């Protein structure tokens, strides 16, 4: 396991704060998810339900059912998958699972070439910037993880190419990161998730 120093933003002071980027999702991160992320998420879901929002509602967090332990177990030991986590003040603030092998690029000019595919990316619920949530503690965690995926793509010789399917609630984030939105496909994820991809040039601009 390797640890890197990164900076995220303390949302209240708007000052950079040092955090740790780990090239793994370990048991400690899964315990944080299980006992801290989910507790905050449950508070938010109760709040939404109390306000009459249902699971089909636009505000209902679309990653609410994600089970990070299952996602990590599913690919444990596989060379083509890896994970990253961001830790700040001894608590996991974000996690990402990558697929390095089973997807290829789709954009004209790079179609068929290997890329880093982001299987899942999520930040801790207390960092969400949502109307039903408490004010976020930290910002910039998603950007750190996207930068990590892009850097991994360069390190793998994939020239910065990164792809992902986005939950509808995260579309704006990936557009702001410079990804190209290739839209939805009725044969993928029931046509609900748009596919995004970043080229070498877009990746360099993001870094």
């Amino acid at each position, binding site marked *: 396991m390797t640890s890197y120093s990164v900076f995220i933003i303390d949302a209240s002071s708007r000052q950079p704060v040092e955090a740790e980027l780990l090239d793994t999702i370990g048991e400690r991160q899964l315990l944080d998810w299980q006992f801290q992320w989910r507790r905050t998420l449950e508070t938010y879901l109760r709040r939404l339900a109390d306000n009459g929002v249902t699971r089909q509602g636009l505000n209902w967090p679309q990653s609410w059912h994600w089970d990070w332990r299952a996602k990590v177990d599913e690919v444990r030991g596989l*060379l*083509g998958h890896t994970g990253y986590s961001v830790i700040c003040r001894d608590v996991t603030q974000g996690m990402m699972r990558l697929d390095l*092998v*089973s997807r290829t690029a789709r954009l004209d000019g790079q179609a068929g*070439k290997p890329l880093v595919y982001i299987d899942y990316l999520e930040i801790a619920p207390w960092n969400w910037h949502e109307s039903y949530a408490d004010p976020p503690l930290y910002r910039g965690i998603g950007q750190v993880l996207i930068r990590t995926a892009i850097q991994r793509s360069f390190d793998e*010789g994939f020239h910065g190419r990164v792809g992902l399917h986005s939950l509808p609630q995260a579309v704006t984030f990936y557009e702001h990161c410079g990804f190209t939105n290739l839209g939805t496909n009725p044969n993928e994820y029931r046509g609900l998730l748009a596919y995004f991809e970043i080229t070498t040039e877009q990746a360099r601009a993001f870094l």
Partner: protein
Amino acid sequence: MSKKTMTLNLTEAEMSALEALCAKKDLSKIGLMRQALRLYQMIDTRVERGGKLYFEDDQTREKSEIMML
């Protein structure tokens, strides 16, 4: 991460195939071998778990199973 080194002896045909794939996929030889190992391991694991590997014709939807040896 510590790394190990190995020497790989390939026939002319194997080297030609490797170089052609490297050009097509925009990868170095090392990168391509690494991808091949990842893919082989992933498929082998999925098949061992009871999965089947198919190619499906986009037009006819006809499926042909790939046998892993």
